[in-house]
């Protein structure tokens, strides 16, 4: 007997008796339940404009574009968010970075996010290699016309300025100051991206940029 067939539990369709066939007891029972709710009514509704919702920390609201420590846009215009986006709401135009940004090849000349098309799935945040795009807790998004909700680069940076000090919206940067693409040197040790043999000497040394193996315990992080 295979493992899966062991897990199969056979249930019989319950036999219908006389009372079931007449529907009457079931209907009365149902009415009893609903009536009970009417009589001992206790609403669980949150009355929104007066009572603000208590959102979970992973709530996905309006996007923001983070700034790096020099107040430049962190985005490197790799367009991975636009690629990952299932709603195709992100349009990026890239350009060579200004000459006085020596650490960068590429930056977003324009970055437009259609908040109306967006489905707030957070895939852009997942895809971003430099932690530039993040979803905030802002949910009450309104505009007077469609163009108001086409968020461009400056508007998205504005959302960052607005939310960065909010304890609910910490900059969730996991990597270095600029992220992997721009700042390879400062990478902390990460988990393995591929399977690593347990006896591989190199996999056991935890150094910057090295992906520590799962087969053997990583040595202490360099710090």
């Amino acid at each position: 007997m295979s493992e899966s067939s062991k897990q199969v539990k056979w249930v019989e369709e319950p036999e219908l008796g006389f009372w079931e066939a007449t529907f009457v007891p079931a209907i009365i029972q149902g009415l009893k339940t609903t009536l009970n709710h009417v009589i001992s009514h206790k609403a669980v509704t949150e009355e929104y404009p007066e009572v603000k919702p208590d959102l979970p920390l992973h709530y996905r609201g309006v996007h923001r574009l983070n700034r790096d420590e020099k107040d430049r846009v962190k985005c490197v215009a790799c367009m991975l968010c636009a690629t990952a986006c299932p709603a195709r709401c992100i349009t990026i135009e890239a350009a060579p970075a200004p000459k006085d940004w020596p650490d960068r090849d590429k930056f977003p000349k324009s970055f437009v996010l259609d908040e109306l098309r967006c489905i707030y799935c957070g895939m852009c945040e997942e895809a971003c290699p430099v932690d530039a795009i993040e979803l905030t807790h802002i949910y009450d998004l309104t505009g007077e016309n469609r163009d108001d909700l086409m968020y461009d680069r400056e508007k998205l940076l504005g959302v960052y300025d607005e939310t960065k000090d909010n304890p609910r919206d910490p900059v969730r940067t996991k990597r270095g100051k600029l992220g992997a693409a721009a700042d390879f040197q400062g990478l902390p040790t990460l988990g393995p991206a591929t399977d690593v043999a347990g006896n591989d000497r190199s996999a056991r040394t935890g150094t910057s940029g090295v992906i520590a193996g799962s087969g053997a315990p990583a040595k202490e992080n360099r710090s």
Partner: protein
Amino acid sequence: MTEILVTLLTVLVVVGAIPGVCNYLILLERKMAAWMQDRVGPNRVGPWGLLQPLADGIKLLLKEEVIPGHVDRALYIMAPMISVFTTMLALAVVPFGPVEDAPWWLRFIIAPNIDIGLVFIFAITSLAVYGIILGGWASNSKYSALGALRASAQVVSYEIPLGMSVLGIALMSGTLNLEQIQSQQAAAGLLGWNIWIQPLACLIFFTSSLAEANRLPFDLAECEQELVGGWHTEYSALKWALFFLGEYTHVITISFLTSILFFGGWHFPGIATAESTYMFAWLVKLMVLMTKVFMCIILIMLLRWTIPRFRFDQLMELAWKIMIPLSLFNVVLVMICRHFELSNVWLLTGSVTMFCVWGIVSTNMRRSELQAKSPGYRMAAAAPVAATSAASGGHH
């Protein structure tokens, strides 16, 4: 002259009151739904949301009226009108108060002394399905068409038990005139209410009228899961509102009919009897009738939020395999009782016996059906190993 004025006034009262009443019934229904589901319900417009119907009405009036390009315009516009018109027309012969005790300026029935009252009602209310069919067909959309098809099949099926169940009442009373049916009950007192004499007919009547009115659990025609909005998918704004006005008017009609046919209309022992002659007796009687109607409406609403929607084959099974035979036997029973002039007790016991017999019969029917449908089912349950290996062997 007075006659005409009184008629006009009555018509005005009815036609004026119905939309307002419907609006507030919708509010009530929404509130009821909210209470049952531990919510608050409409509470933004006015105190306790009491102005919500007004806001809704204004919204529906002012809303952009979308007529899709692919519809048959004439029929598309006509359909909601038919829907409202027919249901309102049916109310013409329904006595909505004590007709005999009416004050001189109001009559409580638009068209008094119609001897074919019941036939008229059924003739007109079954026309209401034309609104749905035409609306669905003229929308030129598959969802609408499917909804309309379902609605027509359903109405055609439930028309039969509906008529049959009332036939028993007509046989007993010897009249089709609603006022007379009511006054006969009033004269016979509490135990003379038809519910005691023909409970089965009452059950069939009430169930089939829910189906006639496309109310839950029989609103297959606007089944959202499969059909978006059903026959009114392509409708918006006022035309959409008219459909709903029609539906609610239908609910009101049903409630009136149920109260009058089976629950003695304005009669209530001790307060409002045929002998009550005190001042404003008509008002008390009116209130009694209205209370009964209101209770009936409340029951319909409770049922809506309690019972899940039927599957279409179950719906048809209920009509053709259960309600039609039962209502036929019920008519036969009434005829026998009338012919041999048996007492009403026999009718009551006959009704209950039939109900029980049918329950037992259908229980056994279902059991054998189940066995016929899946002969391997029980075997599989008995020997799961063999069944899985056979299944995996057949898999390629």
